[in-house]
């Protein structure tokens, strides 16, 4: 039986509330890193997965290395949380995915009591040749929205490598989100960024996803799904640069607005440098699709219920 300290217990509870299973965090067979504010509560490496965390002034610096050709059976669990109402948490992380390795990460970020809090995520990802990394980060915020979330990711995906990264912030108030993800792709590499945010109250949401398709046959997708309600202001910048023959990039943005005071905008930027590259974008911003709502109303749901079903599906 694990002997939780109070902090341990609080972070585990927050993790559970955000949809995770606390037992996964402390299972010795699973690689994991648990950080509360600027303290490492628990870290566990397993064969082929080395997690090296170090406490710094306002947070934690972590280097996570997956050894070449390692196929990691269970997801690596990362848990970052702050229980107090105020403070700064800075997570500086470096992911090194060795050649031919395959790994899934499940990250939970929990800030249930935030009043004046700043959460900075500064990540560098290096996906080596023919390696595969899937990363899902889910946020759980309290209702007050007194938080700034500043995730920055710079990723390099080498030849034949694959990176899929999903960011979800749909529970609780967003506060202020300024997300900036960048992927640089080499030959035959693939990179997908998928951001889902449910903005409420006075939330401010800025999402920037950039893809640099530098290698021949590289493939990139910058996808975002944003719902803005209340007085939320949301802006999405989707960028793709085609620098190589047969590179393909797609920017896909859907933003739904509910209420008269919310504002959404989308700015796609496509730049073709190599004449063999092809980039596309689609953006749909505005109210919920009328036909979707009426279809569900024709099954007996009232308008609010129907909109809820559409929105929840989109943000899933």
């Amino acid at each position, binding site marked *: 039986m694990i002997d939780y300290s109070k902090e341990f217990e609080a972070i585990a509870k927050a993790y559970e509330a955000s949809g995770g299973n606390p037992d996964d965090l402390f299972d010795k067979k699973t690689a994991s890193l648990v950080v509360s504010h600027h303290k490492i509560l628990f870290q566990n490496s397993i064969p082929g997965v080395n997690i090296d965390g170090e406490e710094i002034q306002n947070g934690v610096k972590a280097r996570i290395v997956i050894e070449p050709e390692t196929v990691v059976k269970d997801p690596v669990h990362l848990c970052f949380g702050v229980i107090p109402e105020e403070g700064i948490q800075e997570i500086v992380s470096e992911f090194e995915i060795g050649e031919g390795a395959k790994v899934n990460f499940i990250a939970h970020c929990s800030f249930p009591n935030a009043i004046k809090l700043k959460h900075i995520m500064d990540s560098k990802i290096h996906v080596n040749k023919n390696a595969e990394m899937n990363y899902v980060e889910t946020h759980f915020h309290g209702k007050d929205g007194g938080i700034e979330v500043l995730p920055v990711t710079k990723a390099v995906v080498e030849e034949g490598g694959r990176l899929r990264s999903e960011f979800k912030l749909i529970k609780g108030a967003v506060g202020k989100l300024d997300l900036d993800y960048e992927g640089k792709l080499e030959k035959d590499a693939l990179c997908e960024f998928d951001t889902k945010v449910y903005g409420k109250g006075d939330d401010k949401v800025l999402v920037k996803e950039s893809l640099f398709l530098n290698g021949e046959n590289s493939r990139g997708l910058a996808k975002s799904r944003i719902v803005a309600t209340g007085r939320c202001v949301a802006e999405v910048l989707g960028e793709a640069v085609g620098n190589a023959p047969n590179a393909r990039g797609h920017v896909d943005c859907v933003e739904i607005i509910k209420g008269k005071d919310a504002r959404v905008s989308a700015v796609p930027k496509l730049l073709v440098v190599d004449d063999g590259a092809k980039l596309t974008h689609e953006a749909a911003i505005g109210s919920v*699709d009328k036909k979707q709502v*009426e279809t569900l109303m024709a099954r007996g749901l009232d308008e609010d219920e129907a909109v809820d*079903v559409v929105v929840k*599906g989109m943000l*899933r």
Partner: protein
Amino acid sequence: MLSLSNIELKINGKKILHDLNLEVRKGEIHSILGANGTGKSTLASVIMGLNGYQVTGGRILFDGEDITNFPVYERARRGITLGWQEPARFEGLTVGEYLKISKRFSGDGFLSVRECLLKVGLSPELYLARAVDGTLSGGERKRIELASVLAMKPKLAILDEPDSGIDSLSIDHIVDVIKTFSRTGSAVLLITHHEEVAAIADRASSLCDGTVVKTGEPLAVAKFFRNHCEECPHVNQPAEEVIGND
């Protein structure tokens, strides 16, 4: 059960439907025949009460209740539903979840979600977990729409061209599904271009220039349609073009 009397629909001053009278009896299959642009899909939208299709004249009675001004969901809760000609796609919503929404209104004593899928010729194992999104073909989506309507066990199912976009080999299957509605106690208002599909009905009506011009035995109405309507100059501007699709 459903009675439309002197229905008029004007959109932007343009008459789309006028002097339209129609009765659908309890449990019957009632076909609607008509050339493109004569108002068939508009009629379906009017009965369902979709936004932009509120009648400008006449009355709609359902089981004796005046539902003319009811919103879509109130009509649905009284037992009317619609299977769209081109059904909506839903990102992130699985087929199982979509069908369960309908099941809320039919309850446990009726066909299960799995059985509804089997009725439309789709394997539950392959489809229940799939999303009702753009990864489904047009034919698959239409079958799922039929399953969704079936799962609701409506008193009246309005099926807008359930046979369009379906390969000819599968038409017989779709006809079987439509008969299933009838067997399970639902009346069906069946909008179709295919005379052979319309022929399965108990009664049929032909639409021309936004009004019903003939009602009767299906073969007789089909013959009337062939002789009078196929080259008829009375073609409306479809209401969807006047309203716009958003």
